[in-house]
């Protein structure tokens, strides 16, 4: 059963000539699943979340959260959601506990219920011992945990997480990802945005790939990978003559596409073991020397490359 239903959502800033940040995006999220929006920076992920948070008014389309329209019933939507913004949105001169108490009040909690929930959330984000310390004294990872904790205070039906692991150390990232999986196991529905392919692959029940404001693919990880078939991803660096080599490699049997990404060639090949010797031979014949080779099995990165002709990180 869908708890989030997005229908042809559209956002244009400063119409009619402004940027079309989201261009007719549609998807749904089932109760209790993690749905990730995967795309490069500027793809429209945060704008989509802003509209689903009732922070931005859509230029077109609509979205329903727990049956309530973000256009006409924003108040009910806000009561159903918890939003974790991309940047830390806390009061640095207040302690972790003071922050949680304040935000709890903003979510309508009060009295004993408020204090109980704050205690529970502090436990959940493992900051009970540091609850009286000012947030400004926390590490990036600890701030991220408080940032997430705020959105959990009122036990939302749907949790939006907008790139919550940007700029933190691997240990904190691991902790946050584990926490998100635990929340899903408790039945919470999660909308997650990221430009990290590995996170989307690990966390998501389903993934929507967005680029230039459009939803270009949607499905489970396995379904999406099938888009590029069984092709492997081969990165090659050469000592010189890169452009000429890419043109020649594109004609090698078994190579589906060959493009340039900065100072290396990116190839999709059907069977890496079979094709690699031919690539070396072609390079040698052209007087060029391969200096580095990376082979990657099919993944979301390759799906994005296949669909857009660009690498995901661009």
């Amino acid at each position, binding site marked *: 059963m869908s708890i989030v239903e997005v229908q042809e959502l559209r956002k244009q800033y400063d119409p009619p000539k402004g940027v079309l940040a989201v261009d007719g995006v549609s998807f749904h999220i089932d109760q209790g699943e993690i749905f990730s929006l995967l795309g490069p920076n500027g793809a429209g992920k945060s704008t989509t979340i802003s509209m689903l*948070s*009732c*922070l931005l*008014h859509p230029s077109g389309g609509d979205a329903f959260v727990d049956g309530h329209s973000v256009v006409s019933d924003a*108040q009910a939507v*806000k*009561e159903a*959601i918890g*939003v974790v*913004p991309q*940047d*830390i*949105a*806390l*009061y640095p*001169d*207040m302690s972790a506990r003071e922050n949680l108490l*304040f*935000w709890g*009040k*903003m*979510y*309508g909690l*009060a009295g004993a219920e408020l204090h109980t929930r704050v205690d529970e959330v502090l436990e959940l984000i493992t900051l009970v011992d540091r609850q009286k310390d000012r947030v400004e004294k926390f590490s990036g990872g600890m701030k991220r945990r408080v940032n997430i904790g*705020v959105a959990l205070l009122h036990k939302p039906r749907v949790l939006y997480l907008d790139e919550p692991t940007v700029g933190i150390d691997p240990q904190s990232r691991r902790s946050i990802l584990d926490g998100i999986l635990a929340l899903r196991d408790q039945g919470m529905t999660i909308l997650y945005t990221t430009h990290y392919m590995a996170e989307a692959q690990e966390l998501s029940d389903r993934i929507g790939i967005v680029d230039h404001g459009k939803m270009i693919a949607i499905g489970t990880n396995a379904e999406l990978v099938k888009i590029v078939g069984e092709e492997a991803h081969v990165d090659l660096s050469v000592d010189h003559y890169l452009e000429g080599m890419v043109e020649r490699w594109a004609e090698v049997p078994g190579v589906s596409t060959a493009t340039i990404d900065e100072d290396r060639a990116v190839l999709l090949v059907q069977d890496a073991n079979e094709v690699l010797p031919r690539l070396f031979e072609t390079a040698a014949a052209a007087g060029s020397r391969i200096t580095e080779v990376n082979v990657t099995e099919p993944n979301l990165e390759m799906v994005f490359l296949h669909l857009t002709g660009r690498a995901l990180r661009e």
Partner: protein
Amino acid sequence: MSRILAIAWKDLRSTMRNVPALAMMLLAPLALAALLGFAFGGGQSFSISATKVAVANADTGASGAGAAENAGAVVVGVLKSPDLSDVVAVSEKPSAAAARKSVDDGKAAAAVVIPADFSGALFATSPTAPKTAVEVYENPTQEIGGAITESIVGQALLGFNGARAAALAANGLATANGDGARAAELAQQAAQKYFNDGGAAAGVSVAQRAPRLPGGESTKDVGVTGTILAGMMVFFMFFGANNVARTILDEDRAGTLPRLFTTPTPRHTILGGKYSSVFVTVTVQAVILLVAGRFIFGIDWGRLDAVAALTLVAAAVASGLALLVISAVRTPAQAGAIGAGVYLVLALLGGNFTGTAAAGGTYAQIQKLTPNGWLLQGWDAVMRGGGLADIALNLLVPLLFAVVFFAVAALRFRKRYA
């Protein structure tokens, strides 16, 4: 309501932790009031010592001039009037030379020499009669004393000249109407009527020259330090309000304001909380300054109800204005620069640095175009002993300003955060 209070409390606590902001809100006005108060008298009231004036009245009078047969004596009487006893101290000298010598010896700031033919020339009925002049002999190193003496004597002579003009006009009319026999009598009556109608100042009362303020008929003296601190308090309330209102922009940039908008708390509640925090902060600021003024400088602010009303209205004006400024800018830096400009111009126009009591003419009218001008007049009236009824307009007009400021700011915020 609890959410509004939560936002207000959060901001208030944040402000109280901001030491530089607190120094600007509380220490700066107190320090400025202390410095300026010291510069203008160092104490409760602004005062200068009475100017010493030596007077030599050689006027022999004019025969047949009735009640004013010796105009020189009248001038001396004006100078020695009880109303002016705080301003001039007169010593009569037997001769013009003796009077001038007093000045030369530094015993007097100015000498007034009234010539022997003063009354004769004054009461001559012929327009072609010889003219005469009263001499004011001044010590050039005591400019203020000389200026005061000149002003008083000039005022008295202005009255005589007016009476003389009236007498000459009556005389001319009587002669023209063939009533020459009664010309002198009619001229005297005209001159007398001029005096009786107040055309001539029998004495120049400083109190009478003071501006007419609400409650101005009261008798309390207003201390310079109190006047200055009232001006500084209102001025720095603007800055205090600006500091707190600026947190809207700070929070917008920090992401906490957009996050607040994603909570079920309505936007008008969030902005209401912000307004409350500004209002409460500047009210607390004003109360601290009032109490400090009372105990540090001994300022008698006046009746408690009127003081409370003025404080609350001043806080409303400062809050509304600060929100208006913040709604018109995009960044905290702009808020600081543009806010400072707006508040400074308002303070200059409204009289925060000069007080409102001394203002007259066009400047007094300009002051009334500003909310702070009205407020300061109210403070002056209350410090003079005025009550709520006396300052009704000084409360209502600024309150109207505050409502307009807040309404425009609310509309702009609504548009910005729609």
